[in-house]
């Protein structure tokens, strides 16, 4: 009996030791993987950047001025602004101050490693109609992508779910915070619809896995597209019917109570045009298809992708549809497209008077390249001013946030970046940054790994 008991205790002890060891290892691993810096949410305070070049974006650039950040907002900007007592002074000599950049087309926080690490991917829900799924509920505030992105001057992003016909609701977040709510700028901003394409079996995403799908006859492809559009319209009809049933019940309680349908419920504000719908579309004919759909269904539309949006500028302008352009880095689809076909698209959109912004369209890790996407557009016909606006003020406008961010103006949220050169240049370094007025440490998973190995002999 006794020896058995001892054995039992020994076993328990062993298990305990083992679990401590394993648990310890796990916490070590997760600290490494999530980046121990992730809870460095910066510090609040009153900050004054003095003697800097201030690129307001909304107005004239102040060559030698001061900007004051207080209570999370921009409190003052100008050539002759006095520094409030107790403010932390930052010498802005040789520095340029910019509004934080905004990427309006990412999947930030929804997928840590997309290839073959399924456990880290929360991008695509099962089913075609997912109006009720919300990115804000899938965003990992401790993704390593967040710090890596923000230290390059990007302060806010739209994070969108992907896949299916109705992918779900995109969120707008600041790249700082320990919880999704702390990060949220607009928790449920827009519904993402992957607008049905005329897919003839190659290019423009029509070809399926590896582009090896069998080509489809054009007329057949049109028919397939129309069938899918009809499917989409059916959801509108169901929602209308559902809303009517609810209205009727509200007026007459003797009617049977309509069972709650959370998907249709979620779709209602988008159907009514109270909130925007982001339609992914690249090719002219598909973009025109979106414009027709928006006009017919009386919704508020935004194009995401937009390779050939400039070609459909008339339809887009008529229906007030702006474009989140995600293709500066993409290769032109057709062999006989101009080599700079996708570099010049932003300048063509500008020339056509379209409202657009530039986005990386990246899942997360390479969102930090946003300034270079805009810069390349600047090399190919877009003015430098527009290039800068396309990742700041124009993005804010399209996201309905122009009163809060996108430029340096008194009263706006203090999402502010201090750089040692032109914000869009690849060699420029970010020296200070503020999100919601908090001074953010310029560390990331990458600077930590760098520090760990840079002096190894």
């Amino acid at each position, binding site marked *: 009996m006794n020896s058995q008991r001892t054995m039992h205790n020994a076993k328990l002890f062993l298990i305990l030791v083992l679990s401590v060891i394993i648990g310890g290892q796990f916490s070590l691993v997760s600290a490494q*993987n999530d980046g121990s810096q992730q809870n460095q949410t910066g510090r609040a305070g009153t900050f004054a950047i003095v003697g800097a070049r201030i690129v307001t974006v909304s107005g004239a650039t102040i060559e030698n001025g001061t900007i004051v950040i207080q209570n999370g907002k921009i409190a003052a900007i100008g050539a002759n602004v006095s520094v409030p007592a107790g403010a932390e002074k930052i010498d802005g000599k040789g520095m340029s101050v910019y509004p934080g950049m905004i990427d309006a087309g990412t999947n930030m926080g929804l997928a*840590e*490693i*997309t*290839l*073959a*690490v399924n456990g880290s991917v929360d991008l695509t829900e099962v089913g075609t109609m997912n109006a009720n799924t919300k990115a804000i509920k899938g965003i990992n505030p401790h993704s*390593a*992508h967040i710090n890596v992105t923000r230290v390059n001057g990007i302060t806010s992003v739209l994070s969108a779910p992907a896949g299916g016909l109705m992918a779900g609701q995109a969120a707008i977040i600041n790249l700082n915070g320990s919880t999704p709510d702390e990060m949220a700028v607009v928790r449920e901003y827009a519904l993402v619809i992957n607008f049905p394409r005329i897919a*003839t079996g*190659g*290019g423009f995403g029509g*070809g399926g*896995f*590896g*582009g*090896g799908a069998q*080509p489809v*006859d*054009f*007329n057949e492809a049109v028919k397939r597209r129309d069938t899918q559009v009809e499917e989409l319209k059916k959801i509108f009809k169901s929602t209308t019917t559902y809303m009517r049933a609810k209205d009727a019940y509200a007026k007459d309680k003797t009617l049977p109570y309509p069972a709650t349908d959370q998907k249709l419920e979620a779709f209602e504000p988008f159907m009514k045009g109270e909130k925007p719908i982001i339609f992914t579309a690249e090719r002219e004919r598909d973009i025109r298809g979106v414009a027709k759909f928006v006009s017919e269904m009386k919704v508020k539309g935004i194009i995401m992708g937009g390779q050939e949006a400039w070609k459909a500028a008339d339809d887009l302008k008529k229906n007030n549809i702006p474009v989140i352009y995600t293709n500066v*880095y*993409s*290769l*032109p*689809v*057709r*062999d*006989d497209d*101009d*080599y*700079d076909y996708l570099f010049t698209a932003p300048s063509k959109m500008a020339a056509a008077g379209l409202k657009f912004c530039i986005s990386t369209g990246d899942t*997360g*890790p*390479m969102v*930090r390249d946003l*300034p*270079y996407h805009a*810069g*390349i557009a*600047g*090399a*190919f016909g877009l003015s*430098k001013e527009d290039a800068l606006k396309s990742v700041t003020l124009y993005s804010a406008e399209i996201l309905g946030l122009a009163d809060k961010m996108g430029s340096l103006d008194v009263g706006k949220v203090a999402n502010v970046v201090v750089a040692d050169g032109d914000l*869009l*240049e*690849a*060699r*420029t*370094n970010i020296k200070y940054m503020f999100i919601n007025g908090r001074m953010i440490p310029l560390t990331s*998973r*990458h600077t930590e*790994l*760098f520090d760990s*190995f*840079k002096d*190894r*002999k």
Partner: protein
Amino acid sequence: MKKITAYFVLLILLVGSFSVVVSAQSNNDVLIKNASVLTAARGTLENTDILIQNGKITRIGKGITAPAGARVIDATGKFVTPGIIDAHSHSMLDAINEGSFSVTSMVRTRDMLNPTDIEIYRALAGGVTGALLLHGSANSIGGQSTTVKFKWGHPVEDYPIADAPPGIKFAMGENVRQTTFSPPPGTPLRYPRTRQGVIETMRDAFIRARDYKQAWDDFKSGKTKVQPRTDLELKPIVEILEGKRLVHAHGYRADEHLNLMLLADEFGFRVATLQHGLETYKIAPEIAKRGTGASIFTDFWGFKLESYDAIPYTAYILWKNGVNVSINSDDGGRMRRLNLDAAKVQKYGGVPEQDALQMITLNPAKQLGIDKRTGSIEVGKDGDVVIWNAHPFSVYSRVDTTIIEGVTYFDRAVDAKMRMDVAKERETLEKLDINKAPGTGGGPPSRPAERRRGDRDDADNGDGGNN
């Protein structure tokens, strides 16, 4: 069928207009006047002329007069760099992986080069003049590489650099293990499936090659009269052992690249380049000690588990340790902006400008064994140069002209004119009955050929598309 013919006519016209570029000069002599010349060897020379004669750089200096028949390019206010060399590309390859076995050293990229791949022209428009064309990363030993110059419009035999040493692609990690995709149900798993299996597969190949070499040595020395049977799989591996073939080894994790270098120590050869090598910053001294090169992305990361520890400071750490570093694209899209990837090397760690520029010019040339002829602007080297409208490290810069051995292969002004010609041609073709839209008398319009993506190795067996 007729529609296809019409498209071919268009293609021929396209190719035809390129040959106009080629034949515009009475000879291939070019004098570039008054440029800021980033030599990638001797710093930046302001207000400098470069004379290219018979394909070679013959003079660099001020106030050079143009010889008769030479084309003169006024590059006032412009920048000139050596042609960019991409030490990891899959452009031009009609197939990327022979994925049936894990050792396929017998297959050759040379046999599947497509000189009409539009990526060539787009790369030229990004200032790239040369590339190492590699198999994908599906196999431990993937096949024989080809080192080319992008002589767009020329027949395929003009592309390979004749005196470039031969190379071979090795690969390790997730793609070789075939763990990045689910094999169709019922398919037996291919060996190797683990990192320790991969290195044993390579060791096995080297042991077999050593034995094979022994058999031939014995035959040649008369020790035996029985001639060994030729083995196309082992021949190129023997060339590695003899130091005649360069090993370019795809991998991500530091430990597996270290394992390969230890294997190379064991068999007495030097690995030419660690490709991708996104964790090479963890083993920089070990790499430097062996004189092995690293050909990396500047900052691409996080696309798979084995790239999760990649950092943009890798180039700096390797450079500080004295490793020869090149920045490659592995992608037809990224290939067009290698100048910006080099600029980022300055941002992350502060590598000096010329050293950063060398990472896309002279360093890859050294890694590929072609630095005697290209990679920097020096007298005696091939006239492979790029003219930029602004400093090539500026995001606002654009390539104006790309020249290989004195011949212009991309010129923005010519491209602009060509577009108008093509547009006119298209208009004519579209009016043809056979090309009318459905419902207006013709059949469905023909769709221009899409890029051949079906076999690109990220799609099925990993690597080509950035991975």
